[in-house]
């Protein structure tokens, strides 16, 4: 059905990322007072690029034409080395591009309402456009180099957006933290990239058999070994993994992500749903062939194992921390970290398709959740503490419904929500993973906790009685903010249709096979088994939460019901397991100590020494004075004046005139020349 579109694809696809970038550039030169125009430009550009991306998605649905390379453009030529950049459209990138443009489009629309009263309204949209354009380049790139450049652009844009309220010191600090923390990962990414280039001589992913992800190069990469017998592909993949960890907020580089909540809520939605954190997962998914190049017969390789374990740990860790948070956005932030852990587990255990499905489903419901949370915050007059909310389902019923959809999708409510099926697919992959049951168990526990804390949050915010001292009456948001919520909620539900085991169309499509409807798939014992397990997990989590938080005290100052039971553990969780404190101690502490030591050295050692020296000199001076008085006076004066005269005549050579110096240099050179020829002769 997309046949007529095919011939124009190479030309049009460039416009998908370029349109938002151009919009960003145009907005950058617009005066600040044209904020409304800026928002229209940004949204319009993104709308166009969304249309193109959807068309491209349709194109890639055609069997046999699923992957198409956009001819590479030579970007720079150095000698006989040509750096090429190009685009690559396969189901994965098509789906990602469509998701990014679609979700971001609704976030843009939402922002028009949300940021309405902002002074730097136009600039905000400029940054948003830059952010989206960069992310689209990440997604569509056919070259690790272009991907890296866009990756860095994403980092830059996130820095500017997180620090959008740069007057707030916390926001500025959060922006710097995000930038520097991800930089640690980027460094590893960069080294990995250069290593790959050195080994293979190309950075293009697909290049008619010579690309990085094609079998010829992969064989040679897997064949070469480096320190400790590790295959080069594995080592480079590990480096890439570190980069992805930084971007996707995996433990231990996750600390920036919760702090990034300092940005405006639409930014949080964009970062957590469509653009920033998805980049890391997408990087691993895109370069998955490198990760698995050196795999053994079981399909295991060191980077994959590392990814699975890191993902599992992250998932559980973040879920635990989310339990004890009270800021509505922070809870969502930790849940993002947790869900990214899920995706990593899926990638590690070989389920690229499952990871992508979860990524896209997650994008929809997490954007939905964030925007709903923004709506709540907006309605409660910038209140973010869930302990001060409660009972909001009466005040803002529409937001409540959409929030409930998002929350149920995230918790994995069975059957009709996309989150359920995507999570189920991941757990399935983890369960049958030959590398052990660790990631599966971790992920299962995390899923349980997810259901628990999401229910807790929903209960605290929307149920019970209002607990808001000194906060004016909450109100429903305007429709420019609500419409995006409806659309995203619909997406969160409808996506479930394409990922069920009965008709696993999405996964088959990503993997390049044609999907078929198989009603029997649901009845397979292992699927039944897993669905049952998932159901149990969700029921347990929701039920436990319901039991504990059903009757929360109406006092906003009261302690959490769990706090008393868990005691110190609760506080530990509240502090996010002390990662920030750990970094404070492990990295910042020694530096501070070193500085302090030098300061002490200065104060305690050098200053007394100077004092001693000073007194000595004083004493000598007194003695000299006396002896001078006693008869050296005359001679000393003469000495002084003599010295002065010599000094004056010596200083005359330092005339300060450049030409005099030049002449001196020239004379010296002449003498050297004469010497040289004399010696030769």
């Amino acid at each position, binding site marked *: 059905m997309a046949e007529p579109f095919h011939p124009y694809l190479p030309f049009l696809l460039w416009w998908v990322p370029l349109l938002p970038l151009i919009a960003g550039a145009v907005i950058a030169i617009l005066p600040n007072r044209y904020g409304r125009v800026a928002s229209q430009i940004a949204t319009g550009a993104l709308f166009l690029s969304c249309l193109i991306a959807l068309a491209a998605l349709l194109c890639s649905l055609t069997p046999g034409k699923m992957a198409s390379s956009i001819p590479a453009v030579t970007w720079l030529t150095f000698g006989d080395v040509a750096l090429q950049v190009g685009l690559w459209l396969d189901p994965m990138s098509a789906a990602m591009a469509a998701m990014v443009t679609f979700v971001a489009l609704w976030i843009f629309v939402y922002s028009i309402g949300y940021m309405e009263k902002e002074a730097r309204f136009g600039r905000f949209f400029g940054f948003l456009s830059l952010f989206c354009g960069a992310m689209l380049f990440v997604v569509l790139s056919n070259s690790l180099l272009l991907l890296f450049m866009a990756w860095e652009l994403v980092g830059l844009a996130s820095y500017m957006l997180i620090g959008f309220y740069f007057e707030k010191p916390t926001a500025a600090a959060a922006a710097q933290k995000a930038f520097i923390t991800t930089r640690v990962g980027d460094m590893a990414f960069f080294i990995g990239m250069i290593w790959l280039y050195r080994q293979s001589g190309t950075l293009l992913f697909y290049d008619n058999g010579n690309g990085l992800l094609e079998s010829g190069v992969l064989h040679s990469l897997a064949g070469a070994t480096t320190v400790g017998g590790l295959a080069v592909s594995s080592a480079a993949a590990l480096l890439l993994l570190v980069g992805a960890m930084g971007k996707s907020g995996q433990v231990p580089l996750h600390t920036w992500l919760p702090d990034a909540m300092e940005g405006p809520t639409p930014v949080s939605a964009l970062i957590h749903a469509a653009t920033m954190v998805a980049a890391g997962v997408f990087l691993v998914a895109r370069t998955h062939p490198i990760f698995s190049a050196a795999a053994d017969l079981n399909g295991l390789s060191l980077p994959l194992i590392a990814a699975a374990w890191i993902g599992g740990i992250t998932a559980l860790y973040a879920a635990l921390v989310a339990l004890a948070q009270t800021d509505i956005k922070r809870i969502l932030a930790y849940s993002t970290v947790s869900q990214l852990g899920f995706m990593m587990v899926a990638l590690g255990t070989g389920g690229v398709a499952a990871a992508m499905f979860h990524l896209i489903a997650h994008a929809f419901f997490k954007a939905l959740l964030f925007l709903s949370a923004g709506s709540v915050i907006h309605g409660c007059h910038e209140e973010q503490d869930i302990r001060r909310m409660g009972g909001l389902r009466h005040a803002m019923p529409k937001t409540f419904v959409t929030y409930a959809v998002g929350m149920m999708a995230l918790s994995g409510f069975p059957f009709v929500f996309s989150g359920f099926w995507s999570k189920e697919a991941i757990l399935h992959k983890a369960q049958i993973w030959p590398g052990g049951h660790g990631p599966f168990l971790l992920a299962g526990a995390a899923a349980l906790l997810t259901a628990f804390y999401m229910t807790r949050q929903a209960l605290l915010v929307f149920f019970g009685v209002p607990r808001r001292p000194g906060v004016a009456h909450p109100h429903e948001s305007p429709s420019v903010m609500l419409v995006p919520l409806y659309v995203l909620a619909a997406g969160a539900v409808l996506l479930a249709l394409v990922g069920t085991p009965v008709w696993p169309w999405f996964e088959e499509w990503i993997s390049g096979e044609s999907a078929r409807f198989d009603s029997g798939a649901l009845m397979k014992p292992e699927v039944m088994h897993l669905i049952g397990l998932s159901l149990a997990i969700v029921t347990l989590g929701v039920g436990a939460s319901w039991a504990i938080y059903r009757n929360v005290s109406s006092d906003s100052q009261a302690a959490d019901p769990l706090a008393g039971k868990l005691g110190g553990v609760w506080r530990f969780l509240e502090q996010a397991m002390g990662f920030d404190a750990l970094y404070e101690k492990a990295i910042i502490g020694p530096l501070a100590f070193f500085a302090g030591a030098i300061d002490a050295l200065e104060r305690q050692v050098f200053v007394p020494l100077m004092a001693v020296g000073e007194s000595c000199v004083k004493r000598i001076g007194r003695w000299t004075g006396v002896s001078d008085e006693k008869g050296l006076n005359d001679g000393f004066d003469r000495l002084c004046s003599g010295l002065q005269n010599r000094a004056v005549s*010596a200083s005359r050579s*330092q*005339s*300060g005139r*450049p*030409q005099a110096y030049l002449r001196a240099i020239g004379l010296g050179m002449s003498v050297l020349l004469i010497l040289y020829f004399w010696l030769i002769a």
Partner: protein
Amino acid sequence: MTPLSLLLIVSSLWFTLGLFAVLTRRNAILILVGIELMLNAANLNFIAFWRYGPPDPDFTGPLFVLFSIAIAAAEAAVGLAIILMVFRHTRSTDLNRLDSLHG
């Protein structure tokens, strides 16, 4: 005397004269004049060797001269801008008066 050696001698004389101007002139603008002379001496050499030297299908000599001309224009613009700024501060373009760093 071949054309090549004639041009080489002219260019070395130009270079020497330019250097002499740089070393002895006091007006900063005239020092720039000397520098232009030296640059042109080099350019002359490039053209002379391209024309009378071994075959050169890639036009290396003229290309170098072209770039050299572009860069010389840039140098003159920046140099004169600096001289004018100095002039606005000190009311003089005499280099010997700009000796506040003297010993």
